[in-house]
């Protein structure tokens, strides 16, 4: 890994970020389009939750990881403080792995 590929990846990533932000400001959008864009962001975030809970690369992540996420999710749903959600998710996954659950 040399400087050139790092710079290309950095510039490309910034272009995605900046492009989206500028487009949003430049175009006046009707309400339903703005609503659709915020739905799009939620759809992407939920897909990230699903894939990062259940998969490591192309294969199944094992049970400890989704179990931790599930415990965190249930606590969040029951309006537990954020710190509790984070700690419980990590502790569940860590303890299950300690107990030999992949």
């Amino acid at each position, binding site marked *: 890994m040399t400087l050139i590929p790092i710079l290309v990846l950095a510039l490309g990533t910034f272009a995605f970020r900046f492009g*989206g932000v500028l487009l949003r400001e430049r175009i006046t959008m009707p309400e339903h389009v703005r609503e659709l864009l915020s739905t799009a*962001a939620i759809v992407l975030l*939920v897909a990230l939750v699903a894939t990062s809970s259940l998969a490591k690369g*192309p294969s199944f992540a094992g049970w400890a990881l989704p179990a931790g996420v599930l415990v965190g999710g249930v606590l969040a749903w029951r309006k537990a403080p*954020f710190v509790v959600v984070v700690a419980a998710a990590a502790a569940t996954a860590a303890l299950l792995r300690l107990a030999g659950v992949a």
Partner: protein
Amino acid sequence: MRSIWRTLDAELWRGVLAIALAAAVNGASFGAISVAAGTPLWVPVVMSLLIFAGGSQYMAIGVVAAGGSPIAAVLGGLVLNARHLPFGLAVGDVIGRTWPARILGSHLLIDESVAFAMAQTDARRARAAYWACGASLFLAWNLGVFGGALAGQLVSDPEVLGLDAVFPAVMLALVLPALKDTGKLRPALIGAVIALAATPFLPAGVPVLLSLLGLLAVPRRNKVEAPA
């Protein structure tokens, strides 16, 4: 800037700090793994400052360490980061109006800052949450990477600590309130199923982009607006 500190309540700050701590440990692991793979110390450090997107950084280092070409590493990273474009479209008005704010704010656009902003109910809190989360994670991630690259093998595996569960759990906690709206829940669930089904077959990043097909399940506008 100072208003950010006053706008956010203690609960939100504690949330930001909790995920910043997890990001610092993940960053330390990235720094240590990179150095262990034989990359010079400056590589993970410069990557984290300039790219600031953990998934694509792991991927790039992994591809090169496995003997892949830097071009493959860059292309894979770009596919993984393409989701930042629709994220920018969704939160672009939250960031601020001045050029320095737009440029700096764009660099701080990550999954977490978007999710934190979208979980807020009014525009002022959304802006404060976006900047607080983006800046805290930038600081934590980069300090973690630097420390990890220096410490090398001393850093323990984040998976042993269960820290890989923090990112999805935080994201889930932040999107839960939005999912009470069935107009968002249905497309999100369909999108998640599509992404999961595609994960074994397609390169990383593509399945998450494919989840946008779930938007086809958004209720038609004329139906929503039609008088009952």
